[in-house]
């Protein structure tokens, strides 16, 4: 049974974002604000960078504001002028990515003005943006979200996120389903998924943690990963990507949302997060950490798998 999810706070959130953006831009305390604006199609939204206080009215927040805007602050995205402090609208999941980027020397907290969004959830897909947020259309990440209210922002509208219905945790269930399979069955599952991949690299391009200026997988001396979108190269690409994000991924699930081939990419990231939690008690959070779980060690780490 689909349940409607209460997004009534988004009107207040939108107003608050507009007000705060107007204030910080007119004060000159930030040079730009990265946020969301409405687009042509009914109900749609797209990322926007505003530099004038007068444009603040363009900013919105709705269930279609799916993007993780943190990607615009990384080095891979050279197009946002990064002179001076930048304001950015963040959901809880986006903030975790920003925090991760700070830990990886990509961003400095003092160069950011964080506008936190109390979030009731966003849509899983914006193929049809004019869709009501329900237990059927809500993004899988929101189903298991524990960070509806971002912590440590410079400004957070004083609205309380509504109590959302308890929803089935799709990732956890799907991971459990796959784990219960035999290796051959899992291989068959992923083979069919990865086969669809066309190497459009949307997953990489939207990922805040894929900030490498030259991706390993774009290199040809040596060619570590076959660039051709064939099953073999696709498999390698997604394994390497998941490995590179292990212990870093903040769980925004943008890779999965943007995949035009519907490959459940975030399952890989969630699986790695689950393992790293079990092995090293690591979880992405709101606190900046100097070292991720795969950049450190403990002499007593589990080695039961080593003969």
């Amino acid at each position: 049974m689909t349940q409607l999810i209460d997004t009534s706070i988004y009107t207040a959130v939108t107003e608050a974002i507009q007000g705060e953006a107007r204030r910080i831009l007119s004060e000159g305390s930030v040079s730009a604000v990265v946020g969301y604006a409405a687009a042509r199609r009914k109900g749609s939204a797209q990322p926007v960078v505003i530099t004038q206080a007068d444009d603040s009215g363009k900013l919105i927040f709705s269930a279609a504001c799916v993007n993780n805007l943190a990607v615009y602050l990384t080095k891979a995205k050279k197009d946002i002028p990064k002179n001076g402090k930048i304001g950015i609208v963040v959901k809880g999941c986006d903030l975790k990515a920003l925090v991760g980027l700070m830990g990886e020397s990509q961003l400095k907290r003092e160069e950011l003005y964080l506008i936190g969004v109390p979030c009731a959830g966003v849509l899983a897909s914006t193929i049809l943006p004019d869709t009501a947020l329900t237990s059927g259309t809500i993004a899988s990440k929101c189903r298991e979200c524990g960070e509806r209210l971002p912590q440590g922002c410079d400004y957070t509208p004083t609205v309380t996120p509504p109590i959302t219905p308890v929803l089935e945790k799709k990732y956890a269930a799907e991971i459990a389903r796959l784990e219960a399979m035999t290796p051959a069955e899992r291989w068959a599952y992923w083979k069919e998924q990865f086969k669809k991949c066309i190497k459009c690299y949307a997953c990489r391009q939207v990922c805040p943690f894929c900030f490498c200026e030259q991706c390993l997988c774009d290199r040809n001396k040596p060619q570590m990963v076959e660039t051709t979108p064939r099953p073999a190269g696709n498999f390698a690409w997604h394994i390497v990507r998941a490995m590179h994000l292990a212990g870093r991924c903040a769980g925004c699930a943008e890779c999965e949302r943007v995949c035009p081939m519907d490959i459940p990419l975030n399952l890989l990231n969630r699986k790695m997060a689950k393992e790293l939690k079990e092995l090293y008690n690591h979880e992405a959070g709101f606190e900046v950490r100097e070292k991720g779980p795969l950049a450190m060690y403990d002499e007593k780490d589990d080695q039961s798998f080593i003969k």
Partner: protein
Amino acid sequence: MHTEKEKHTFEPKIIAFVCTWCTYAGADLAGTSRMQYPANVRVLKFPCTGRIDPVFILKAFQQGADGVLVSGCHPGDCHYIAGNFHARRRFAAFRKLLEFVGVDLGRLQFSWVSAAEGGKWVEMVTGLTEQVRGMGPMQEFKELALEEQWSGSIDTPELQEAYDQI
């Protein structure tokens, strides 16, 4: 004295990634001690297990390896202080990933073999070779390499289901 060697129909290809200070030296010791083990293994020497990139393991499988062995210094013995500790975490995570995408972990073995453990090296290589021989060839990556994207396969489970309904 030569014992009659058993002939096998399948000789697995085993690729070993080892560190130079411990396991490579251990394998040397197995040699100087004239221990015997299956000739299926090909050894790639690294300065340290810390240098071994998970991509190499993936490459080895793509290149037709039926089994991969990664071996280095025991914890605390690392010539480079902590390379093997970093490697331990990296591989703990990577094997979970490989397992999740459907690689049978029976084909991927990790071990600590010191420069003094010629016998253990023999045990590791023999064990993995026999285990993989029992599992048969690693078909998955080989089949993958032969598949073309554009041709599409005409027997996906999903299609099969659709066909079955008519």
